[in-house]
């Protein structure tokens, strides 16, 4: 049984992130998919902590676009995990954009303007950070894409455009883009859904699902990590799929292979 406090837990191994490489490698898109029964938000929290806590990357910045929760929510959660977002925010290492209290949207034109203004803010932040000494990577996180779609009046085209902009920004400035979306929203849609396009674009897809046997108090669900292969120092690794279970606690998450938890 491994906790996220140790250097290598099953999730980090599956992601292929390690401190030397930094996990950025010329722009990466990581897509987290969850469902009503099983939230994948804990993966975002884990990644925030990883990106802010690495001693080898003291100047890295996390740009966080929140449509789901106010800052206080993440602050409390991360504090229990040993990461003080308030301090990181003051040090400009955690840049939080509150997208909850937007003006009531006024149609497609309003949506497009909103999109441009949001992207502009992110671009400026990333450019500013990249000019700092010792900069290695930025991380752009969006919680979550389906709420962004609602804020943009249902225009999935605008959302995809936004992702493409972020992805090119990521490639240019060596960023990691992490987005959370809900798989079950799109599973009832017949036409090729935006989610399929996101899955195609993503380098890593993490799916959080309930167990086939239903909910349980000691196993909260299962993760399936599809890593399409990132280039590490010694060359490119092949596409890998890993599946394991997890249990979410206040201060960490336990990841373990089925049946191996004592």
């Amino acid at each position, binding site marked *: 049984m491994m906790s996220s406090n140790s250097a290598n837990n099953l999730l980090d191994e599956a992601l292929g992130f390690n401190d030397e490489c930094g996990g950025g490698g010329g722009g990466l898109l990581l897509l987290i998919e969850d469902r009503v029964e099983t939230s994948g938000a804990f993966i975002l929290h884990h990644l925030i902590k990883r990106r802010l806590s690495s001693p080898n990357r003291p100047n890295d910045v996390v740009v966080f676009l929140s449509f789901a929760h106010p800052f206080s929510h993440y602050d409390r959660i991360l504090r229990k995990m040993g990461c003080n977002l308030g301090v990181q925010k003051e040090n400009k290492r955690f840049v939080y954009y509150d997208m909850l209290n937007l003006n009531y949207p006024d149609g497609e034109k309003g949506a497009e303007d909103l999109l441009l203004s949001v992207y502009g803010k992110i671009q400026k932040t990333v450019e500013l950070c990249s000019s700092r000494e010792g900069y290695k990577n930025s991380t752009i996180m969006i919680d979550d894409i*389906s709420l962004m779609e609602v*804020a943009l009046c*249902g225009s999935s085209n605008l959302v995809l455009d936004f992702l493409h902009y972020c992805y090119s920004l990521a490639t240019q400035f060596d960023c990691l883009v992490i987005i959370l979306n809900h798989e079950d929203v799109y599973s009832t849609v017949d036409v090729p859904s935006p989610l399929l396009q996101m899955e195609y674009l993503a380098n890593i897809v993490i799916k959080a699902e309930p167990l086939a046997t239903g*909910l349980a108090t000691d196993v*909260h669900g299962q993760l399936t990590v599809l890593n399409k292969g990132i280039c590490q120092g010694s060359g490119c690794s092949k596409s890998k799929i890993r599946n394991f279970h997890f249990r979410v606690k206040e201060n960490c998450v336990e990841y373990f292979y089925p049946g191996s938890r004592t």
Partner: protein
Amino acid sequence: MAANKPRTSSFSRNVGVVPTSQVPGLKHGPNGTVFLSSGIADLDKILGGGFCLGSLVIIMEDPDAPHHMLLLRNFMSQGLVHKQPLFYASPAKEPRGFLGTLPNPVSLKDDKSREHDTEQEKTLRIAWQYKKYFEDQNLDSQKDGKVEYCSDFDLRRPLDRHALSGQCIDCVSLQDCPNLATLYDRCSTFLAQIPRFDGNITLAGRISIQSFSAPQCHFSDKEWDMLSFIRSLKSLVRSSNAVAAMTFPPSLVSPTVLKRWQHLADTLLSVRAVPDEDKDLAKLLTGYQDMLGLLNVHKVARINTQVPVILEATTYSMKLHKRRSLVLECLNQAPVDGSSGTSHATSGSCSVSSKTGALDF
């Protein structure tokens, strides 16, 4: 004297002058949250204390039965008993009429006879249901005249006039809203009057929206507008000392919008009718004849925490205790006739037959 000096330390806690526990109708929850009561004691217990301030509660209706109204009535009455401002919106032309159907708390003189009966009933409950929940029944109620956190409502008696007069109650007919921006503005104006001080909550408000996507509403076919409203309402409520409870008929929205709606909810419940005279169900469950309906708890609000709530059971039967108070009970399988051969004895998580696939013991 040192004993009279206030204790100072470098650690500062964000505690208000008036402890929230002394404000009637509010109590502290874990992780810095504050709860208010749903008006149904059993539901408060299932949810870990009540509805969390700042959360959006969504109740999926069953077109075959109006049980969601029972939940709303208790929710609204509880707020009025605690003098919490109330905003109510419904598709009816005259929503104020609904206030006349809100239940009154069981009066004190009924309490004395109730206590005596409860004592007797306790022994019966131990014998037949092996449950210990009744031990916690009176934890929150106090006999010295203080207002209870969760009242015991008598659904047969309407709320006293004095509970309604002088209260801040805002009623809106959804038919009068030409678009959802109007409704949003009304909610925003309502919430603006509830003071928002992080450390010192003195008052909480309740928003109750009934049958949101009902066909009478002008916007019922505008799915993205409705989602947009819900998202905006959720954000409004999150930054205020209020709880919003909304009911809607899931069969009237498309599946993908339904999923988005479910994701938007902090707490997600659904009510279902129990078919009359279903012989198979009657054999399967004890107390089937007394059931009004079923309540499912799909999701519990996770504010300021990442740990999910895993309930022992997610389906509860809705019954009337003494024909007046709404209670929720875990489903219990009836003792099985040994000759049938294929069932499991305990109320675990195994499903017995395909007919009961939707029930979760």
